[in-house]
């Protein structure tokens, strides 16, 4: 009797626990379902479709047939594509370095107490908040070869006598879009790095000051190493966005002059949507993926290494 009574009690104890587990699992599935559906339908599915598309000979209005890696061979031999690859890396590299340096500098300037700090901080984020296309138009107007206000200012200061062809000259065009990208990205870096700076106790800077470290030494030995985890994450996000950038170049130059500012995204658009060569456009888009993948993996590994140091 006692034995059966015990096992009955035991089984009662088991069920609720099992029920809870089932409960959690069901609940988790229910909670994650909408996300899974949306992301599956509009990211995973298109991704595979994109892979298939790049392996076919599809055009607009013509589904085409399977051609294997022909498209990839084609774009690899395409000199414009190679220029695009170089452009994208150059664009991403230069802007990231400057965004980091200037953003960090701005964060340090903001990391003090002064009147109006909250308002300035709010205004500083505007370049990042306002839709890129709209602010890029403002820059395009500022850089317009005939009407540029920048040219006007430089002329008034006596620094130039002939106009600077910001958007017509290939090198200058690249410089122009780099400037705008930096302008847009510095606030993001500044605000996130500022938050990172604020986690560093001021006592550490004071101790370093007493230890004899001048401002630059304090930055290099105390601030920079402690900021590293946040810096790496910010750089990771920024690199991905910049590498895949489209809006800025599309509005400013459309990829020209002479393909000097084409990035993966704009060239894919021009080929795929503009000319209708869907499969080749898809191939170019997908070509981003291996590069992005490597960049992300390298950075994630580095982040892990820094965090467990």
């Amino acid at each position, binding site marked *: 009797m006692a034995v059966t009574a015990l096992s009955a009690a035991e089984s009662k104890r088991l069920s609720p626990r099992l029920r809870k587990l089932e409960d959690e699992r069901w609940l988790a599935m229910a909670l994650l379902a909408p996300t899974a559906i949306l992301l599956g339908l509009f990211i995973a599915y298109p991704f595979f479709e994109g892979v298939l598309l790049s392996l076919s000979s599809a055009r607009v209005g013509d589904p085409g047939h399977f051609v294997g890696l022909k498209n990839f061979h084609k774009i690899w031999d395409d000199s414009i594509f190679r220029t695009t690859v170089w452009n994208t890396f150059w664009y991403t590299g230069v802007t990231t370095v400057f965004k980091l340096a200037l953003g960090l500098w701005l964060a340090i300037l903001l990391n003090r107490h002064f009147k109006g700090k909250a308002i300035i901080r709010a205004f500083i984020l505007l370049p990042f908040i306002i839709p890129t296309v709209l602010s890029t138009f403002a820059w395009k107007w500022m850089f317009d070869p005939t009407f540029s206000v920048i040219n006007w200012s430089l002329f008034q200061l006596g620094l130039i006598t002939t106009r600077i062809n910001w958007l017509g000259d290939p090198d200058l065009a690249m410089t122009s879009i780099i400037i705008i990208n930096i302008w847009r990205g510095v606030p993001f870096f500044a605000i996130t790095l500022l938050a990172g700076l604020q986690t560093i*106790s001021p*006592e*550490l800077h*004071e*101790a*370093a*000051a*007493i*230890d*004899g*470290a*001048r401002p630059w*030494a304090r930055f290099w*030995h*105390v601030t920079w*190493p*402690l900021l590293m985890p946040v810096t790496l994450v910010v750089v990771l996000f920024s690199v991905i966005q910049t590498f895949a950038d489209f809006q800025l170049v599309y509005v400013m130059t459309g990829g020209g002059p002479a393909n000097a500012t084409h990035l993966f995204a704009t060239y894919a658009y021009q080929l795929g949507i503009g000319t209708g060569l869907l499969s080749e456009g898809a191939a170019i888009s997908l070509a981003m993926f291996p590069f992005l993948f490597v960049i992300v993996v390298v950075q994630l590994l580095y982040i892990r290494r820094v965090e467990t*140091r």
Partner: protein
Amino acid sequence: MAEVSLHKLNKKFDTTHVVKDVDLQIRDKEFMVFVGPSGCGKTTTLRMIAGLEAITTGEIRIDDRVVNEVPPMDRDIAMVFQNYALYPHMSVASNLAFGLKMRKFEKAEIEKRINNAAAILGIESLLQRKPRQLSGGQRQRVALGRAIVRDPKVFLFDEPLSNLDAKLRVQMRVELKKLHERLAVTSVYVTHDQVEAMTLGDRVVVMKDGLVQQVGEPLELYNTPANRFVAGFIGSPAMNFADVTLVENGGKPLAEAEGLRIGLPGELAARARAKAGQKATLGIRPEDIHIATAADAPEYCFEASVEVVEQLGSEILLDMRVGPALMVASVEPTLRVRAHDKLKLALKPERLHLFDAESEAAI
């Protein structure tokens, strides 16, 4: 020679006046303790000596050199912070070496100093560890070590023991005292704990609301407090205070309150006579009250009703009611006493204190 002198030192944050006219001479090799409640200005004063806060008006001299505009790194000082401020990404050895590296010392010299400091503090085995792998007490020692290797003119301590648990604090206090005897460097130490002040200081500065209340050797502050605040701040358990009126009874000055009629001895009587009729505050420490015996003169006795008995083992603290006032007495641990008992107590006349009711200065 490393003297520190503060001359008419003032500090204002916007309109808040936190340090008011502080004048002080700290002698060479002296261990000077600044003590007082939170917000009294002691930490701000220390930070001005360090160069971490700008001076509003006044002068600070280290070794007869005015250092008002000199940045912290050039004042030849070392500081131990309350939260230790150890560089979390560097090993203990690197933490110790940092200040010397910044001043471009030779590697051999740095090694020597690190090993020396580590030996003094007993942290040789921790040199390769990171701060997060250390206990509170160990971090404390590393913070001390960082100051020692610099061999500065002045040590500055900002409540270094506040973050340690009680037992560790007692231990570290002793070690700090031994350290000071061994190194003999002029030290300025800030704390809110009067026990630390009494045990560590060669001299103690008591501050309140930005003003210096009294400067003197610990025993001086204990025996002859300059005002009511110092009297109540120094000593634990705190001094008992009772509001009294000074009267003359047949040529003898008395302090009178409800339930209390205490005579005043010798010199104190003379000074009290000058204030006859006025209100004052009577002060007597718990340790100076004992159970009345036949040998005690009646004018120094009073009656009290026991409310709470705190048996500490080494002594008994009696929380008693005397008229409307509450007092604490410290008596022998062997006394048999219970709550609600009525006792007759006596106090040591030479240990009586009187303070002016308005100015709070000692009479």
